[in-house]
Protein backbone atom coordinates (compact mmCIF):
# COMPACT_ATOMS: atom_id res chain seq x y z
CA UNK A 1 0.00 0.00 0.00
CA UNK A 2 1.20 3.54 -0.59
CA UNK A 3 2.45 5.87 2.15
CA UNK A 4 -0.44 8.33 1.91
CA UNK A 5 -3.00 5.59 2.48
CA UNK A 6 -1.12 4.38 5.55
CA UNK A 7 -1.64 7.77 7.15
CA UNK A 8 -5.28 8.21 6.08
CA UNK A 9 -8.30 8.57 8.32
CA UNK A 10 -9.53 5.74 10.49
CA UNK A 11 -11.99 3.28 9.02
CA UNK A 12 -15.13 2.63 11.06
CA UNK A 13 -16.17 -1.01 11.17
CA UNK A 14 -19.61 -1.82 12.53
CA UNK A 15 -20.07 -5.49 13.33
CA UNK A 16 -23.62 -6.85 13.42
CA UNK A 17 -23.66 -9.93 15.63
CA UNK A 18 -26.44 -12.05 14.20
CA UNK A 19 -26.38 -14.36 17.22
CA UNK A 20 -27.77 -11.75 19.59
CA UNK A 21 -28.68 -8.79 17.39
CA UNK A 22 -26.15 -6.43 18.94
CA UNK A 23 -23.68 -4.23 17.12
CA UNK A 24 -20.19 -3.12 18.06
CA UNK A 25 -18.07 -0.46 16.40
CA UNK A 26 -14.35 -0.79 15.85
CA UNK A 27 -11.88 1.75 14.50
CA UNK A 28 -8.93 0.74 12.38
CA UNK A 29 -6.25 2.60 10.54
CA UNK A 30 -5.94 2.02 6.81
CA UNK A 31 -2.69 0.17 7.34
CA UNK A 32 -4.05 -2.09 10.08
CA UNK A 33 -4.02 -5.77 9.13
CA UNK A 34 -7.51 -7.19 8.77
CA UNK A 35 -6.44 -9.99 11.10
CA UNK A 36 -5.92 -7.45 13.89
CA UNK A 37 -9.44 -6.09 13.47
CA UNK A 38 -10.87 -9.61 13.47
CA UNK A 39 -8.99 -10.40 16.68
CA UNK A 40 -10.28 -7.18 18.25
CA UNK A 41 -13.80 -8.14 17.20
CA UNK A 42 -13.55 -11.51 18.94
CA UNK A 43 -12.24 -9.83 22.07
CA UNK A 44 -15.18 -7.41 22.07
CA UNK A 45 -17.62 -10.25 21.45
CA UNK A 46 -15.95 -12.32 24.20
CA UNK A 47 -15.70 -15.29 21.90
CA UNK A 48 -12.96 -17.44 20.46
CA UNK A 49 -12.79 -17.93 16.72
CA UNK A 50 -14.30 -21.22 15.58
CA UNK A 51 -13.86 -22.97 12.23
CA UNK A 52 -17.46 -22.55 11.09
CA UNK A 53 -17.91 -18.92 12.11
CA UNK A 54 -19.21 -16.64 9.35
CA UNK A 55 -17.97 -13.10 8.84
CA UNK A 56 -19.15 -11.31 5.74
CA UNK A 57 -19.03 -7.82 4.27
CA UNK A 58 -22.63 -6.63 4.08
CA UNK A 59 -22.14 -4.52 0.96
CA UNK A 60 -20.83 -7.31 -1.25
CA UNK A 61 -21.29 -10.58 0.61
CA UNK A 62 -17.54 -11.19 0.54
CA UNK A 63 -16.05 -13.54 3.13
CA UNK A 64 -13.71 -11.49 5.31
CA UNK A 65 -11.54 -14.26 6.79
CA UNK A 66 -9.56 -14.83 3.54
CA UNK A 67 -8.54 -11.16 3.66
CA UNK A 68 -6.85 -11.55 7.04
CA UNK A 69 -3.35 -10.91 5.70
CA UNK A 70 -4.29 -7.72 3.84
CA UNK A 71 -4.30 -4.18 5.17
CA UNK A 72 -7.72 -2.64 5.76
CA UNK A 73 -7.54 -0.07 2.96
CA UNK A 74 -6.24 -2.63 0.49
CA UNK A 75 -9.02 -5.06 1.37
CA UNK A 76 -11.92 -2.62 1.61
CA UNK A 77 -10.87 0.87 0.53
CA UNK A 78 -11.42 3.71 2.93
CA UNK A 79 -15.20 3.44 3.34
CA UNK A 80 -17.28 2.75 6.41
CA UNK A 81 -17.89 -0.94 6.74
CA UNK A 82 -20.67 -3.17 8.00
CA UNK A 83 -19.57 -6.68 8.82
CA UNK A 84 -22.01 -9.47 9.66
CA UNK A 85 -20.93 -12.12 12.14
CA UNK A 86 -22.59 -15.44 12.97
CA UNK A 87 -21.49 -18.54 14.81
CA UNK A 88 -22.14 -22.06 13.59
CA UNK A 89 -25.65 -23.45 13.11
CA UNK A 90 -26.66 -27.07 13.58
CA UNK A 91 -29.28 -28.81 11.55
CA UNK A 92 -30.26 -31.96 9.76
CA UNK A 93 -27.14 -32.73 7.78
Amino acid sequence: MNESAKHGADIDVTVYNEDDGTTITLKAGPGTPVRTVIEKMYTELRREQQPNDRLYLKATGEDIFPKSDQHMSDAFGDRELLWEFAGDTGGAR
Partner: protein
Amino acid sequence: MTQTLPLADPEIAAAVFRDHLMRSIDSAAKAGRDWAIVEWVDDLHAVVRMWGRLGDAQYPHFILLGAEHYDLHPPRVRIVDPRSGWSDAAPGTKYFPIIDGCGWFQLHPTYQFADAVRQLACFSYSADYYVSGHTPTDEQRWQQGRHTVSATLTRLHRVLGPEFYRGRGSDA
Protein backbone atom coordinates in the same frame (compact mmCIF):
# COMPACT_ATOMS: atom_id res chain seq x y z
CA MET B 1 -36.57 -40.16 19.73
CA THR B 2 -38.23 -37.20 21.36
CA GLN B 3 -37.51 -35.28 24.54
CA THR B 4 -39.20 -32.45 26.36
CA LEU B 5 -37.94 -29.02 27.35
CA PRO B 6 -38.87 -27.36 30.64
CA LEU B 7 -41.38 -24.54 30.41
CA ALA B 8 -40.13 -21.10 31.39
CA ASP B 9 -41.83 -18.86 33.91
CA PRO B 10 -44.36 -17.29 31.55
CA GLU B 11 -44.06 -13.73 32.87
CA ILE B 12 -40.28 -13.72 32.70
CA ALA B 13 -40.25 -15.45 29.34
CA ALA B 14 -42.72 -12.95 27.92
CA ALA B 15 -40.72 -9.94 29.10
CA VAL B 16 -37.38 -11.26 27.89
CA PHE B 17 -38.83 -12.46 24.59
CA ARG B 18 -40.47 -9.11 23.85
CA ASP B 19 -37.31 -7.21 24.70
CA HIS B 20 -35.07 -9.45 22.60
CA LEU B 21 -37.49 -9.53 19.67
CA MET B 22 -37.89 -5.76 19.54
CA ARG B 23 -34.13 -5.28 19.74
CA SER B 24 -33.58 -7.89 17.03
CA ILE B 25 -36.04 -6.25 14.65
CA ASP B 26 -34.48 -2.84 15.29
CA SER B 27 -30.88 -3.95 14.78
CA ALA B 28 -31.84 -5.96 11.71
CA ALA B 29 -33.39 -2.85 10.20
CA LYS B 30 -30.09 -1.04 10.68
CA ALA B 31 -28.44 -3.90 8.80
CA GLY B 32 -30.91 -3.43 5.96
CA ARG B 33 -33.31 -6.25 6.76
CA ASP B 34 -37.00 -5.59 6.36
CA TRP B 35 -38.62 -7.71 9.04
CA ALA B 36 -41.84 -6.77 10.80
CA ILE B 37 -43.90 -8.02 13.69
CA VAL B 38 -47.36 -8.37 12.20
CA GLU B 39 -49.17 -9.67 15.27
CA TRP B 40 -48.68 -10.42 18.92
CA VAL B 41 -50.89 -13.48 19.27
CA ASP B 42 -50.38 -13.32 23.04
CA ASP B 43 -47.51 -12.42 25.36
CA LEU B 44 -45.54 -15.53 24.39
CA HIS B 45 -46.28 -15.67 20.68
CA ALA B 46 -45.53 -13.25 17.86
CA VAL B 47 -45.75 -13.50 14.09
CA VAL B 48 -42.88 -12.00 12.12
CA ARG B 49 -43.05 -11.28 8.39
CA MET B 50 -39.91 -11.93 6.41
CA TRP B 51 -39.31 -11.94 2.67
CA GLY B 52 -38.33 -14.82 0.44
CA ARG B 53 -35.90 -13.25 -2.02
CA LEU B 54 -35.74 -14.80 -5.48
CA GLY B 55 -34.05 -12.74 -8.17
CA ASP B 56 -35.85 -9.42 -8.30
CA ALA B 57 -38.99 -10.85 -6.68
CA GLN B 58 -39.89 -10.89 -3.00
CA TYR B 59 -42.55 -13.09 -1.43
CA PRO B 60 -43.87 -12.76 2.12
CA HIS B 61 -43.46 -15.58 4.60
CA PHE B 62 -44.72 -15.57 8.15
CA ILE B 63 -42.91 -17.00 11.16
CA LEU B 64 -44.82 -17.83 14.35
CA LEU B 65 -42.39 -17.66 17.26
CA GLY B 66 -43.23 -19.20 20.63
CA ALA B 67 -41.45 -18.31 23.86
CA GLU B 68 -42.67 -21.18 26.03
CA HIS B 69 -39.08 -22.20 26.84
CA TYR B 70 -37.30 -18.87 26.26
CA ASP B 71 -34.54 -17.93 26.78
CA LEU B 72 -32.97 -20.91 28.47
CA HIS B 73 -33.93 -22.55 25.17
CA PRO B 74 -34.63 -21.07 21.75
CA PRO B 75 -38.07 -20.02 20.57
CA ARG B 76 -40.40 -22.44 18.87
CA VAL B 77 -40.59 -21.78 15.14
CA ARG B 78 -43.40 -22.48 12.70
CA ILE B 79 -43.88 -21.21 9.18
CA VAL B 80 -47.56 -20.29 9.07
CA ASP B 81 -50.38 -19.30 6.77
CA PRO B 82 -52.15 -15.98 7.49
CA ARG B 83 -55.33 -17.21 5.79
CA SER B 84 -56.00 -19.89 8.36
CA GLY B 85 -55.39 -18.30 11.73
CA TRP B 86 -51.63 -18.83 11.66
CA SER B 87 -51.86 -22.57 11.24
CA ASP B 88 -48.87 -24.39 9.76
CA ALA B 89 -48.32 -23.52 6.11
CA ALA B 90 -48.90 -26.53 3.90
CA PRO B 91 -46.52 -27.66 1.16
CA GLY B 92 -47.53 -26.39 -2.27
CA THR B 93 -49.14 -23.25 -0.89
CA LYS B 94 -47.74 -19.79 -1.41
CA TYR B 95 -46.79 -19.43 2.25
CA PHE B 96 -44.69 -22.60 2.36
CA PRO B 97 -41.15 -21.72 1.24
CA ILE B 98 -39.20 -24.05 -0.99
CA ILE B 99 -35.70 -24.28 0.48
CA ASP B 100 -33.02 -26.39 -1.12
CA GLY B 101 -29.35 -27.19 -0.65
CA CYS B 102 -28.96 -26.04 2.94
CA GLY B 103 -27.04 -28.48 5.11
CA TRP B 104 -28.06 -26.90 8.41
CA PHE B 105 -31.77 -26.30 7.87
CA GLN B 106 -34.71 -28.46 6.89
CA LEU B 107 -38.39 -27.64 6.93
CA HIS B 108 -40.41 -30.80 7.53
CA PRO B 109 -44.14 -30.24 6.83
CA THR B 110 -45.05 -33.10 9.14
CA TYR B 111 -42.88 -34.62 11.85
CA GLN B 112 -43.84 -37.20 14.45
CA PHE B 113 -43.23 -35.69 17.88
CA ALA B 114 -44.09 -37.53 21.09
CA ASP B 115 -47.37 -35.67 21.48
CA ALA B 116 -48.41 -34.85 17.94
CA VAL B 117 -47.59 -34.65 14.28
CA ARG B 118 -46.70 -31.11 13.30
CA GLN B 119 -44.26 -29.03 11.31
CA LEU B 120 -40.57 -29.04 12.25
CA ALA B 121 -38.22 -26.20 11.35
CA CYS B 122 -35.06 -28.17 11.96
CA PHE B 123 -32.07 -26.05 12.99
CA SER B 124 -30.33 -25.45 16.27
CA TYR B 125 -31.98 -22.08 17.01
CA SER B 126 -35.45 -23.61 17.09
CA ALA B 127 -36.81 -25.29 20.25
CA ASP B 128 -38.29 -28.21 18.35
CA TYR B 129 -34.80 -29.17 17.14
CA TYR B 130 -33.99 -30.18 20.71
CA VAL B 131 -37.10 -32.30 21.20
CA SER B 132 -36.61 -34.26 17.99
CA GLY B 133 -33.46 -36.18 18.81
CA HIS B 134 -30.83 -33.92 17.26
CA THR B 135 -27.37 -33.45 18.70
CA PRO B 136 -25.63 -30.16 17.98
CA THR B 137 -21.96 -29.49 18.65
CA ASP B 138 -21.14 -27.14 21.52
CA GLU B 139 -20.73 -24.25 19.08
CA GLN B 140 -24.05 -24.96 17.39
CA ARG B 141 -25.99 -25.41 20.61
CA TRP B 142 -28.23 -22.57 21.83
CA GLN B 143 -26.52 -20.82 24.74
CA GLN B 144 -28.47 -18.47 26.96
CA GLY B 145 -26.67 -15.13 27.02
CA ARG B 146 -24.89 -15.76 23.75
CA HIS B 147 -27.93 -16.34 21.56
CA THR B 148 -31.24 -14.55 21.37
CA VAL B 149 -34.20 -14.74 19.01
CA SER B 150 -31.92 -12.78 16.65
CA ALA B 151 -30.01 -16.02 15.98
CA THR B 152 -33.29 -17.67 15.02
CA LEU B 153 -34.42 -14.90 12.72
CA THR B 154 -31.08 -14.31 11.02
CA ARG B 155 -30.82 -17.98 10.06
CA LEU B 156 -34.36 -17.90 8.69
CA HIS B 157 -33.46 -14.73 6.79
CA ARG B 158 -30.53 -16.57 5.26
CA VAL B 159 -32.51 -19.60 4.12
CA LEU B 160 -35.09 -17.25 2.61
CA GLY B 161 -32.37 -15.60 0.53
CA PRO B 162 -30.82 -16.39 -2.84
CA GLU B 163 -28.43 -19.00 -1.46
CA PHE B 164 -31.19 -21.48 -0.58
CA TYR B 165 -34.65 -20.06 -1.39
CA ARG B 166 -36.26 -21.53 -4.51
CA GLY B 167 -39.70 -19.92 -4.33
CA ARG B 168 -43.05 -21.02 -3.02
CA GLY B 169 -46.18 -22.94 -3.93
CA SER B 170 -48.63 -21.63 -6.47
CA ASP B 171 -52.07 -21.65 -4.85
CA ALA B 172 -54.00 -18.37 -5.15
